[in-house]
């Protein structure tokens, strides 16, 4: 660097007074905030437009009959009873499978697994699995559950497939939640003479519950709207009956037959109605979309409330 250049640089540095540096930083901050706000507003407008459009088309169609009738060839008589019951049951199976397994796997990886190349491999795979397109899980389920294990196209298989789909999400969330717990809690537990399992089950897990719950809900919300894997395993479109009741009047009073029942779900019913020629069915599809949105919101609301309760309990 020549002497002249150094002199010029020094001159420039002097020219930028402290004031100007602050102003410049301020300007770029404002610019970023503006861009952020614009993006947020655009996203919200698109989302609101979608919901309002749905509501205008479908709101009038939602009544008691719509929720308690089976699908029909006449748009005015058709309902979504079998579809929403199917969705609810599939999600129930998904939760029962994915949450315990995911939490257990996350805890194991975080607390028990030794750091070696096998663990590394598992970790990389789990992270990658979270990004695999859902149709791949559908193909896996079709080949494995439906064709190899001959489990049939049932509520159980659909729940299992969606459980696989959201397992990585729950595992990652569990690990993050466990990792964020202050070391002091762990040290205090050990200091009191607790062994590893006592520490994990008595202190780590309760403290990590809000984070785990968030992960579980993100996963479940994804699962509830999934269509591709469920179509792939061969969910049906017209079902005008409900799965058998889990409660019976004779011993042992409960049964699991409903798990083996054929089913349909809300997104599939919606998809079918959209492709029909009658305009009445398109209204039904919009109404079904609203119900699906409401179910997702309800689930999220429940989770937020639960998380709030748990957090209060911890403090």
């Amino acid at each position, binding site marked *: 660097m020549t002497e002249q250049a150094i002199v010029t640089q020094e001159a420039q540095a002097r020219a930028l007074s402290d004031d100007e540096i602050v102003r410049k930083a301020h300007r770029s901050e404002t610019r970023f905030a503006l861009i952020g706000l614009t993006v947020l507003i655009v996203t919200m407008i698109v989302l609101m437009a979608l919901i309002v459009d749905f509501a205008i088309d479908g709101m009038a169609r939602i009544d008691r009959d719509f929720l308690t009738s*089976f*699908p*029909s*060839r006449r748009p005015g008589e058709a309902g979504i009873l079998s579809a929403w019951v199917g969705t609810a049951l599939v999600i129930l199976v998904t939760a*029962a*499978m994915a*949450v*315990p*397994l995911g*939490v*257990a796997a996350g*805890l194991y990886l975080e607390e028990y697994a030794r750091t070696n190349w096998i663990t590394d491999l598992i970790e990389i795979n789990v992270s990658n699995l979270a990004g695999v397109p859902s149709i791949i899980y559908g193909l896996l389920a079709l080949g494995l559950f439906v064709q190899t294990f001959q489990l049939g196209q049932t509520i*159980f298989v659909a729940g299992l497939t969606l459980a696989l789909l959201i397992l990585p999400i729950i595992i990652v969330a569990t690990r993050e939640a466990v990792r964020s717990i202050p070391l002091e809690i762990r040290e205090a537990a050990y200091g009191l003479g607790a062994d590893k399992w006592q520490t994990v*089950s008595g202190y780590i*897990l309760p403290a990590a*519950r809000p984070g785990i719950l968030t992960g579980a809900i993100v996963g479940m919300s994804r699962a509830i709207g999934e269509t591709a894997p469920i179509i792939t395993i*061969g*969910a*049906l*479109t*017209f*079902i*005008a*009956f409900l799965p*058998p009741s889990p409660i019976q009047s004779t011993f042992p009073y409960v*049964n*699991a*037959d409903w*798990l*083996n*029942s*054929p089913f349909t779900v809300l997104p599939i019913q919606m998809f*079918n109605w*959209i*492709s*029909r*020629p*009658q*305009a009445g069915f*398109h209204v039904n599809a919009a109404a079904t979309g609203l119900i699906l949105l409401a179910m997702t919101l309800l689930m999220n609301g429940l989770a937020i409330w639960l998380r709030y309760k748990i957090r209060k309990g911890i403090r």
Partner: protein
Amino acid sequence: MSFKAFIGGIAFSASLLTVNAAMAQTIVAADGSSTVFPVTEAMAEEFQKANPDIKITVGMSGTGGGFKKFCRGETDISNASRPIKAEEQKVCKEAGIEYIELPVALDALTVIVHPSNTWAEQLTVAELKKIWEPEAQGKITNWNQVRAGFPDKPLVLFGAGIDSGTYDYFTAATVGKEHSSRGDFTASEDDNVLVQGVAGDPNALGFFGLAYFEHNADKLKAVKIKAKDDAPAVEPTVENARSGKYQPLSRPIFIYVNKKSATEKPAVAKFVEFYLNTKNAIELVKEVGYVPLPENAIEAFKQRFANREIGTGFTGSKIGVSVDDLLKEQLVY
């Protein structure tokens, strides 16, 4: 929470091993074409009202997907918008699946244009070939190239998705070769997209099933079809398709019944008999926008089912099959 839930999960999975076989007896499983779906759906809906103890499920995997399941023995009834193909016959045969072929209705493929189109009142099959054949790609792009006297306006084409039975039949009937056409047109599996497309462009031409035209008749205009240059122009209507006048764009749609299911599961036989009941086969088919078969044909197929005659009368899509031809076909398994 976790440990208990984990044990719960294991117990829950174990409970699944008790599969209820009795349930399979009262379920009739149908799957296949989305074109035939509304007919089977209507039949299933009415049948279940009369027989609440029998459960019917109807899937929508497409004709090809439906046959795959059918030939693996997973379904009792396969909905098909085209006859079973030679490869599919082979797969079924190897798996020991014997099937009864039953045409259940006719569908009239309708060529449609924008309502403001005053020139294309009628088109000949030769003109449709000129528009749709593979050689037309990039060349036939203006209405005045279709027929002398047509205005100088760009020709905008819409058509069924190339994986559909509708596309296969339309190309076979117009171009002369199944599954062969120009590629520069807007294709969609969703017929409502085609309806929107043609309704929104004054220079558009498209094709799809009659039901989609009838429900959108205020936004679209149907073109009369002349089978030959000197033949009369025929309007696509239920009556013209049923009488066999609307040719070559009328096609039969089918259900295939697994013979073993029909013999061993009373529920399947009962449902198929309901399907072929003369009143249902006319009224319900009409209600969902398809063309019912003439009564003598319905009687003949009832007989075919009663005798459990297996095999197909088709080897690939046949063009311009009249209902009388359907009855004369020799069945081959």
